[in-house]
């Protein structure tokens, strides 16, 4: 693939979730990885958390840690700190200290994944942290929520062990606060964190009163707004306020909170306990190291990055991801981790420590003995009684020859057990069994079993309470299904070293460029005549950099790239196949062609919606924001010379018909306001908003805007601003109810910019073609396996850009490169193993009647005259089973859903009625 590049190992510094993901992805792509962790264990901060939005994912980290430990291409160095890095890109020398021992390792690239620390509020006496025992940090509170934690999952307040009836969360502790908290930025994650803690507290006991004291509720991420709405439905209360002091009530141990409400009136309230939502800080040691080796560190003390190179540091060959380069949530950290992988692949060819951990080809005579191993895993949230019930149910099922409980490392545990027993099949029972598919399959492969000889049983429904009858019946059916499994043939299919990118906007082009740089040929399909997508309407990044110059350079480089075939005015018609071997039909002006490719990246974009409110379309002084941006690009003077402007946020957004938050509109508005004020300080600018969501370092420009005199006025969705032409016809008047003044105010505006919701443009159509799911907001749904933010629900199909969720240019670039990074994990393989859910013709039974040829919805079967029988390419078979059902001679089989199973299940199921 591509021209000669240097080869080398990669050093990953920090083994939090981002570091672990980076190491695993790099190892999958063939690199030998040194994974350095300062502490004694892998995992970083995640093990302290109870749940990760949106679902319980506590058991997702352990398998990853285990995978790191077992992967021969990952050299895990615990208790190790990095002393110095010298050399240059392609050939770095890293000085390390493990305990007392000093050593030096070499690597072609370095990834800084050293994570975060949380703000320590002890110095701020007005929070009473340290002095009042019932004031705790959010991290401490969450630890106490863990079922395996000190309280066994029961909420207790520290002072007297009493179950709290009223809990308050105080937001922005150590964030958005220069005076006392020494950080001006927003820590991004705390709003969701507090909501999650409150919701989980209510899940334990719905009667607990939960109140969150906040400035702005920042639920700007994918699915977050929905989570907020659900939390409100569940009774979580929000109080917009500024907290003045927190004081213990000596006699009771309760906590008195004094705060100013939105109108500035002082209020008091007493709570059983108070949780301080503490902000994030980069790892101090990592920043110290960064400074030492000359990596640029920004004003907020994070490793500095540029929006167009979101995971690059100031030193070539050293990349960064996760909390060390900004306050990021887990999804974004993982996205950056994958992007860093793509960046490494662009200049460095892999040098492995050992041949990749290739699963031995499954022998034809793979062990598929009828004995069944029932392996179960109990989530920390589950009642321990369930374990006992599983064991006793298993004792009544004669087909079950072995039972084991797995903790943490599912793959390792299963391998160990399978090595000791003769079972050929596995029934895996767990809270969300589907999530562990990969681990179960891997364990079967590694143990010389057929990797598809397993069934899963979901214990989730059983929740915390044991329900013996349901549990027993579920296990019985699961075991029966496993008994009825027929081993499918497993085949090696060569990986087509080609990628398809759908969408020629910023995300699509960045993905294509990253893949090409890693040596992979790409076909980039764009519906319109020209490349650029929504990016053509973007003037500047939130940091203020020229987005158009960047875009033009990007388009030029993509068009000149010999490795990238750009097809404009081209639509996608049809797709079939599997990760590693897809066939997609595209159409250009009535001409169709087929593209074979291993992976697909869906970057089909989005647009700001049009609305029929606020005089839009009736008055030419009212712009959609994309129109305002275009005008700022083409004719800036017209806008800059205006005397006054009003920006209205959340237009047609965060409302019933379009409930999601569009993420970047607040940052756009403050950026534009700041730039206009800089050009024309006399311009009066008003921002009319519902929540200012300038999350992360974007908070700094919000601050700058206020300092420059931009006026921010909040409104309630029930009482929207009104807009009318000025009486003298000179402009517009916007009337809005100001909650601080507690009365309506009228604002003159020479123009009004409406920040409307960003919605996906082609997702519905493409979701159908590429067999991926959409989420409730119409964006591509993430993989159910969780913690794979750029994976869609279909293997080998990734997403990036506005089609995944609204985001700004920098984040879109990171996501695009992450999608490329994930794609490269497949592209770097030579073969993929296909099996499982495919149909197979048994030639001796085939009457060559053509029934399958005619009935396959995907035109896969054909009559192979050399075999004298029909043939179904397993790499193309979609596994619907239509031909199996239609074949009059019963010559087509589908081991994963066999006739044996379907004809014997009824009897076995009816037994239970």
């Amino acid at each position, binding site marked *: 693939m591509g021209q000669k590049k240097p080869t080398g190992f990669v050093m990953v510094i920090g083994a939090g979730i981002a570091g672990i993901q980076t190491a695993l992805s790099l190892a999958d792509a063939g690199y030998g990885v040194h994974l350095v962790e300062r502490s004694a264990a892998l995992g970083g901060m995640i093990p302290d958390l109870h749940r990760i939005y949106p679902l319980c994912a506590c058991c997702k980290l352990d398998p990853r840690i285990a995978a790191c430990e077992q992967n021969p291409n990952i050299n895990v160095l615990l208790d190790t700190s990095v002393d110095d890095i010298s050399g240059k890109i392609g050939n770095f020398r890293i000085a390390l200290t493990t305990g007392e021992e000093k050593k030096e390792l070499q690597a072609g690239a370095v990834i800084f994944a050293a994570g975060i620390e949380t703000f320590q509020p002890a110095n701020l006496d007005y929070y009473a942290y340290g002095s009042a025992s019932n004031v705790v940090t959010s991290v401490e509170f969450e630890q106490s929520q863990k079922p395996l934690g000190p309280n066994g999952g029961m909420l207790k307040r520290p002072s007297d062990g009493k179950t709290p009836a009223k809990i308050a969360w105080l937001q922005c502790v150590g964030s958005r606060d220069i005076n006392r908290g020494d950080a001006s930025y927003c820590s991004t994650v705390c709003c969701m964190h507090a909501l999650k803690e409150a919701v989980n507290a209510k899940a334990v006991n719905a009667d607990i009163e939960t109140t969150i004291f906040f400035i702005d509720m920042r639920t700007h991420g994918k699915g977050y707004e929905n989570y907020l709405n659900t939390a409100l439905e569940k009774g979580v209360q929000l109080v917009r306020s500024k907290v003045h002091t927190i004081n213990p009530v000596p006699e009771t141990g309760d906590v008195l909170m004094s705060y100013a409400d939105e109108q500035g009136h002082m209020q008091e309230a007493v709570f059983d306990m108070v949780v301080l939502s503490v902000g994030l800080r980069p790892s101090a040691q990592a920043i110290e190291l960064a400074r030492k080796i000359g990596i640029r560190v920004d004003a907020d003390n994070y490793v500095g990055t540029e929006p167009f190179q979101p995971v690059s540091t100031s030193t070539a060959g050293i990349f960064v991801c996760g909390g060390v380069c900004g306050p990021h949530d887990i999804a974004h950290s993982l996205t950056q981790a994958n992007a860093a992988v793509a960046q490494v692949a662009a200049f460095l060819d892999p040098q492995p420590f050992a041949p990749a951990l290739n699963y031995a080809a499954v022998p034809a005579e793979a062990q598929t003995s009828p004995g069944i191993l029932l392996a179960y895993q109990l989530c920390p949230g589950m009642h321990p009684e369930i374990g006992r019930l599983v064991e006793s149910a298993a004792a009544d099922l004669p087909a079950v020859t072995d039972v084991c409980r797995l903790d943490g490392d599912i793959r390792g545990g299963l391998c160990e057990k399978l090595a000791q027993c003769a079972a050929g099949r596995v029934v895996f029972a767990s809270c969300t069994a589907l999530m562990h598919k990969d681990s179960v399959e891997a364990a079967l492969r590694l143990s010389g079993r057929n990797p598809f000889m397993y069934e899963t049983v979901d214990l989730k429904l059983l929740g915390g309470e044991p329900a013996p009858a349901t549990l027993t019946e579920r296990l019985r059916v699961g075991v029966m299904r496993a008994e009825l499994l027929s081993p499918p043939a497993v085949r090696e299919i060569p990986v087509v070293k080609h990628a398809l990118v759908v969408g020629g906007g910023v995300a699509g082009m960045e993905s294509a460029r990253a893949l090409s740089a890693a040596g992979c040929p790409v076909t980039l399909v764009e519906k319109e005549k020209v490349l650029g997508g929504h990016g053509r309407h973007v003037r500047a990044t939130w940091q203020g950099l020229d987005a158009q110059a960047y875009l033009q350079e990007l388009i030029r480089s993509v068009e000149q790239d010999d490795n990238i075939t750009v097809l404009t005015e081209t639509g996608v018609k049809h797709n079939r196949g599997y990760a590693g071997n897809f066939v997609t039909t595209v159409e250009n002006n009535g001409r169709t062609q087929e593209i074979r490719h291993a992976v697909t990246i869906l970057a089909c974009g989005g647009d700001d919606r049009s609305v029929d409110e606020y005089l839009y379309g009736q008055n030419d002084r009212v712009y959609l924001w994309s129109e305002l941006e275009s005008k700022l690009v083409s004719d800036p003077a017209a806008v800059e010379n205006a005397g006054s402007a009003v920006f209205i946020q959340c237009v047609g957004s965060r409302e019933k018909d379009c409930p999601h938050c569009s993420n970047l509109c607040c940052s756009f508005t403050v950026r534009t306001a700041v730039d206009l004020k800089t050009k024309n300080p006399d311009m009066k600018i008003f921002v009319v908003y519902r929540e200012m969501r300038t999350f992360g370092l974007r908070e700094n420009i919000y601050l700058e805007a206020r300092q420059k005199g931009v006026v921010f006025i909040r409104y309630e969705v029930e009482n929207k601003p009104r807009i009318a032409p000025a009486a003298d016809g000179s402009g517009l008047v916007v009337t809005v109810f100001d909650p601080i003044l507690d009365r309506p105010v009228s604002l003159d505006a020479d123009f009004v910019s409406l920040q409307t919701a960003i919605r996906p443009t082609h997702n519905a159509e493409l979701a159908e073609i590429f067999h991926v799911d959409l989420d409730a907001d119409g964006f591509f749904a993430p993989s159910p396996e969780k913690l794979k933010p750029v994976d869609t629900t279909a293997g080998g199909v990734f997403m990036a850009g506005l089609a995944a969720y609204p985001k700004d240019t920098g984040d879109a670039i990171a996501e695009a490169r992450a999608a490329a990074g994930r794609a490269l994990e497949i592209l770097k393989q030579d073969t993929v193993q296909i099996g499982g859910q495919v149909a197979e013709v048994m030639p001796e039974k085939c009457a060559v009647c053509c029934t399958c040829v005619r009935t396959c919805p995907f035109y896969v079967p054909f009559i192979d005259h050399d075999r004298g029988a029909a043939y179904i390419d397993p790499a193309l078979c979609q596994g*619907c089973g*239509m031909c199996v*059902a239609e074949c009059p001679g019963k010559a087509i089989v589908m081991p994963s859903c066999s006739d044996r199973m*379907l004809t014997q299940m*009824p009897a076995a199921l009816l037994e239970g009625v």
Partner: protein
Amino acid sequence: MDEFTPRIVAFCCSNCAAAAATIADGLQHVLPENVKIIQVPCTGRIEVLHLLKPFEEGADGVYVAGCQEDSCRYTSGISKAARRVAHVQKILEEIAIEPERIAVFNVSAGMGHAFTEIAREMTRKVREIGPIQA
């Protein structure tokens, strides 16, 4: 006299099963105990024989729950299944069994509630017809 509880076997595609799981998780709507689910990748996989087998084993009713006609991931799975159900109805008629004992339903993605509704609806219908064997 005890009310007759029909024994029903339901074939459903993975799409429906996912919908059912979601709803059961969220709203505590669980399937009635008398309805037993057999999951298939797509309803197009279900043969006439598979639909007959439960009757052979003493089921009082059988149904197929699949996608909407226009939203089958495999394009024609549910319409194929519907034709096969119609064929089984013909067979049942020929052997003097009420053809209403077998039915096909379309469930939209995310309509988990409808999925449990269907199970109850079918139970009600088959209860009205009575046991398959007097």
